[in-house]
């Protein structure tokens, strides 16, 4: 007789019922170290609980984790209570955590803390021993997995930000037992070359176990001994490893390490362009200023040129001449007016006018006008000039006395 084949969902449902009905699994308390902790944006927490040999998936829903008095994190030893059930869709069993208590730090975390304290005491983390990161490295050595996302991210960013930069990759395992040793070897090799200006080492995100190679003591000492500046970029922003503490610069991610190691070529170009503009502006301005100076000197020269002063003097003379001319003209005009006056006055006295009104002029033989009786003697020939001719006469007698007396009679 053939058994009817079951559906997957039927089996998963059956197992779930079986598990849920179990006395122990339905209400238990278990201790372990948290790893791969994720606080999902939905508010639920997902993580693993583990001991040296095994791990179990765990989930703590939002409603349960809201009352937690601490923030769970990788490496933390906790006591979780709740129940085990099956997530039917994936056929996975997991621990549904209702309560979580802190028990103390996990072993890995303890080892990390102990090493950190030890190396810190030795002075491996001192700021003063950190080397300056070159601002424009010609060649960058990268120690990381040749196949991971980290190297691709680093190359992409370096190429975008500063294309002239050369990249030399030393492929190394970045997790597992041999990782720390390989990374150390790569770092020492790159450091022994004389063409590497900067080293980047790191890897993408992972669990605390996966990142643990970077908490190795020998690796830390190798990093400390490097002559070449080194940037570490291990995991995500929240992950800190011993290598990060001892390196010259810690970058939150491999992409960020690449960002920090080279300048942005676009910014450089913009900066250079601006300076060239400044240059052109200053040169133009300098030339303009010098020209203005020359123009001023030229103007001064012209102003103080003796020829100009001569011209000025000439002008001055011209002015004086004009004034003089004007004066003379005025004098002439005045005189002309005076002459006209005189003429009109003379006209009044014109002898012709006098003669025409019945007076005559008496002349002697020589033509001299006789104004007085003293100028003639008895018997002298005289001529009397009238309007229309002259009368020739001889002096009969001379009597003294004025004609005015006669008129007065």
């Amino acid at each position, binding site marked *: 007789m053939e058994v009817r084949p079951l559906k997957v969902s039927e089996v998963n449902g059956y197992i779930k019922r079986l598990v849920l009905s179990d006395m122990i699994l339905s209400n238990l308390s278990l201790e372990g170290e948290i790893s791969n902790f994720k606080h999902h944006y939905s508010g639920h927490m997902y993580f693993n609980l583990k001991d040296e040999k095994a791990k179990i998936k765990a989930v703590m829903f939002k409603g349960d984790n809201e009352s937690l008095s601490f923030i769970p994190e990788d490496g933390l030893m906790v006591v979780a209570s709740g129940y085990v059930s099956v997530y039917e869709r994936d056929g996975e069993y997991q621990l549904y955590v209702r309560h979580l208590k802190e028990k103390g730090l996990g072993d890995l975390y303890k080892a990390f803390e102990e090493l950190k304290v030890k190396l810190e005491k030795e002075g491996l983390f001192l700021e003063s021993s950190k080397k300056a990161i070159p*601002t*424009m490295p*010609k*060649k960058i050595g990268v120690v990381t997995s*040749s196949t991971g996302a980290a190297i691709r991210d680093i*190359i992409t960013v370096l*190429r975008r930000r*500063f*294309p*002239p*930069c*050369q*990249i*030399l*990759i*030393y*492929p190394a395992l970045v997790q597992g037992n041999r990782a720390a040793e390989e990374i150390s070897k790569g770092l020492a*090799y790159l450091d022994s070359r004389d063409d590497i200006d900067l080293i980047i080492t790191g890897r993408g995100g992972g669990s605390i176990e996966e990142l643990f190679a970077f908490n190795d003591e020998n690796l830390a000492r190798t990093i400390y001994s490097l002559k070449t500046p080194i940037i570490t970029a291990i995991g995500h922003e929240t992950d800190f490893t011993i290598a990060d503490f001892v390196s010259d610069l810690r970058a939150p991610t491999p992409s960020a390490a690449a960002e920090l190691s080279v*300048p942005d*070529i676009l910014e*450089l*170009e913009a*900066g*250079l362009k601006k*300076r*060239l503009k*400044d*240059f052109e502006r*200053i*040169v133009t*301005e*300098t030339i303009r*200023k*010098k020209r203005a100076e020359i123009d001023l000197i030229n103007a001064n020269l012209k102003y103080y040129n003796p020829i100009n002063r001569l011209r000025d003097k000439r002008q001055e003379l011209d002015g004086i001449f004009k004034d003089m001319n004007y004066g003379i003209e005025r004098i002439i005009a005045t005189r002309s007016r005076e002459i006209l006056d005189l003429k009109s006055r003379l006209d009044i006295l014109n002898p012709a006018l006098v003669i025409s009104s019945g007076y005559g002029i008496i002349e002697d033989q020589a033509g001299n006008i006789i104004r007085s009786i003293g100028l003639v003697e008895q018997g002298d020939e005289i001529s009397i000039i009238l309007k229309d001719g002259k009368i020739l006469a001889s002096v009969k007698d001379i009597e003294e006395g004025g004609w005015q007396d006669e008129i007065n009679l």
Partner: protein
Amino acid sequence: MKLTYEEAIIELEKILDELEKGESSLDQSLKMFKKGIDLYNYCNKLISEAEGEIKILLEDDNGDMVESSYPMGG
């Protein structure tokens, strides 16, 4: 001239400042101007260099490190 980019930029800035002050003689200014242009060209050359190579190191049979080109786009 074996300056780093930053050193060259600092020199360039100094020259710009000096020129901006306008206290130098024309002759000095011209000399500075020429040096500034040289520095500018130098900086420009540094950032305009051809794309740098990407190489990956491999260990050969003798344990020596050998460089070979990195397969891009893989």
